[in-house]
C-alpha cells in the first residue's frame, strides 16, 4: 500500500492486486486475440486488452493520487470507440468481399 498522498484517502485494497488483475485480463485478452478465429472476436479480445490497460492506468493514477491517469483512460475509451467503428466497418467490407470473417480462411496474400 502506498503512503497516503495529499488529497487521497488510503487504499483499502493493495494496488498490486488491481495491477495483477489488470495484467491477467491483458493476458486473457491476448490469448483471445491469438486463439480466436473470428475477426470480430479477435478484435473484441483486443478491446479487452485495452480495458485491462485502462484498469492499470486507473490503478496507477490512484497509487500516485494523480488525475492524469484517469484523463488518459478517458481518451483511450474514445479512441477505442473510433477504432471499433473503423474496424467493424472493415469487417463488413471484408465479409462482402470474402463471405467470411474467419481469419483462417482469408489468406490470399501470403509468402
Amino acid at each position, binding site marked *: 500500500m502506498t503512503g497516503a498522498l495529499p488529497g487521497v484517502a488510503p487504499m483499502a485494497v493493495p494496488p498490486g492486486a488491481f*495491477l495483477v488483475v489488470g495484467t491477467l485480463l*491483458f493476458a486473457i*485478452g491476448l490469448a483471445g*486475440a491469438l486463439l480466436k478465429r473470428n*475477426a470480430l472476436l*479477435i*478484435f473484441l479480445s*483486443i478491446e479487452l*486488452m*485495452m480495458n485491462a*490497460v485502462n484498469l*492499470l*492506468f486507473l*490503478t*496507477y493514477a490512484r*497509487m*500516485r493520487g*494523480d488525475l*492524469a*491517469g484517469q*484523463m*488518459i483512460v478517458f*481518451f*483511450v475509451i474514445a*479512441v477505442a470507440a*473510433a*477504432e471499433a467503428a*473503423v*474496424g467493424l*466497418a*472493415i*469487417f463488413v*467490407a*471484408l465479409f*462482402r*468481399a*470474402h463471405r467470411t470473417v474467419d*481469419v483462417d480462411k*482469408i*489468406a*490470399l*496474400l*501470403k509468402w
Partner: protein
Amino acid sequence: MTGFLHVTGADLACVAPELVLAAFATLILLLDAFARRLRTFFPYVTLLALALANLAGRDTTGTFFGGAVESSGLSRFIELIALGAVALAVLGGAATLERDRRGQGEFYALLLFSATGLILMARGVDLLIVFLGLELMSLSLYVLAAWYRDVPAATEAALKYFLTGALASAFLLYGIATVYGRLGTTSLTRLQGLASGSARDPFDVLLKAGLLAIVAAFSFKIALVPFHGWAPDVYQGMTTPAVTFLSTAPKAGALIVLIRVLHALFPSGLPDPWRPLFGVLAVLSILFGNVVALSQRDLKRMLAYSGIAQMGYAAIAVATFTPEAFEGLFVFLAGYLVTNAAAFLTVAALSAGEKEPRSLGDLAGLGRRHPLAASVLTLSMLSLAGLPPTVGFIGKFLVFRAAVDSGLVWLALIGVLGSLVSVGYYLRVVYVLWMKEPVREVTLVPEDLLSGAAFLLTAALMLAWGVFPRALLELARGAAVTLTGR
C-alpha cells in the same frame, strides 16, 4: 488546482501545419459531399494544402499547448517528410485513381488526416499525444488500405493491418501505462533525465517490460522483424498510391518517436540491454528482409521485404544512438522517402491495375514502352541498393559509418552484407525492365502531368541529394540538434 490553458497565438502557430492539413482535409470531405463536380480538382487542392502547410511550418523551438507538442528542427523534419510523402502519393496516385474511378475526395482527405496524425505523433512530447497521433494516422491508413473495398485482396490487407495494428496499440498502451505508473508522468520532457548516465539500464523489470512494449509497438509501425508480419501482405493488397505514403512517412515518424522516447529516458546514450536489443532487431530485419525479398516475384511484396531490410539499417542508427547516427538516420529517412515513393509510384504506373497482381515478369520490356517511369524505377532500385551517387548511398553510408565509429562494427558488417545481398533483387528489377522481352501485354496507366511531375521530382531528388546532399544534411543536422543539443 490547475487553471485553464489560455491558447496563445504561439500555440496555434506551432500547430499551424496540422491545422492547415486538417482544415483542408475537412474541406475536401465537404466538397466531395456537396460539390461532387469538383472532384477532378481534389489532387490540386491537396497539393495546395500541402504547400500551405509547408509555408505554415516554422522554425521556432519550444513546447506548446501546455507541454503537449514541441516545435524544433526535428518536428520540422518530420513535417517535411509527411508533406512530401503525401505530395508524392497524390501526384503519382491521381492518374491511377482517376482511371479506376476511385478518386473520391475521401482518399485525399484521409491522406491529409493521416499526415496530420503523423506529424502530431512525431512532434508530441506527451505520450498521450503520441498515441492519439498514431491512432489518427493509423485509422486513416486502415481505411485507405481497403480503398478498393470490392477487391478481396484490399479488404484482406485492411483486415490484417487493422488487427495487428490494434494489437500493437494495445501493447503501446500497456507500455504507456507502465511508464506512467512507474515514473509518474507521460510527458517526455518531464521524463527527461530520470535515468542518469549509467552503463546499465537503471529501471526495474516492470518498467523495462513496459518500455519494451512501446518499442515493440513502434517497431511494428516500422516493420522490424519480428513485428513485421503485416507488412508484405498489406503492401501487396493495399492501394498502391496509399502504399506510397504508408511505406515511407509513418516509418520515419515511428522511428522519430522511438528515438524521442529513448532519448528522454536515456539522454546520454543507450544503456546495456537496449543497445544490443536494437542491434538484434536490426540484424534480424536486415537478414530476413533481404533474404526473403530475393525469392519474391510480386513487386509490391518484394518492396515490402526490402522495406523491412531498409528499416533494419535504420535500426542500426537507433542502436548506435549518437548524434552522427541520428544525422545519418535522418538523411537515410529522407532518402528512403523519395526512393521508396518513387518505387511505388512507378509500380502503380507500370502495372495493369489494382485488381491484378504486380508480378515482376510484367515489367519485362517496359523500359521501352514507358521509359520515364522505367528510368525512375531503375534509379530508385539503385538508390535502394545504396549505390552511389544516389541518396540511398549517402544515408546508408552515414549510418554505417556512425555505427563503426561507436564500435558497432558487427552491425555495420551485417548491414553491408545485407545491402550486398539486396543488390541482387534490386538489379533484377532493372534487368527485367530493360533487358527482357515482354511476356504479355500490360495495359498501363496513361502518363499524366501529375505523375510525370512526381517521377521527375523523385528522380531529381534521388540524384540531387546523392550528389549535392548539403541541404539535406543541414536539415538532418537541424533535426538531430533537437535531440542532442549540439
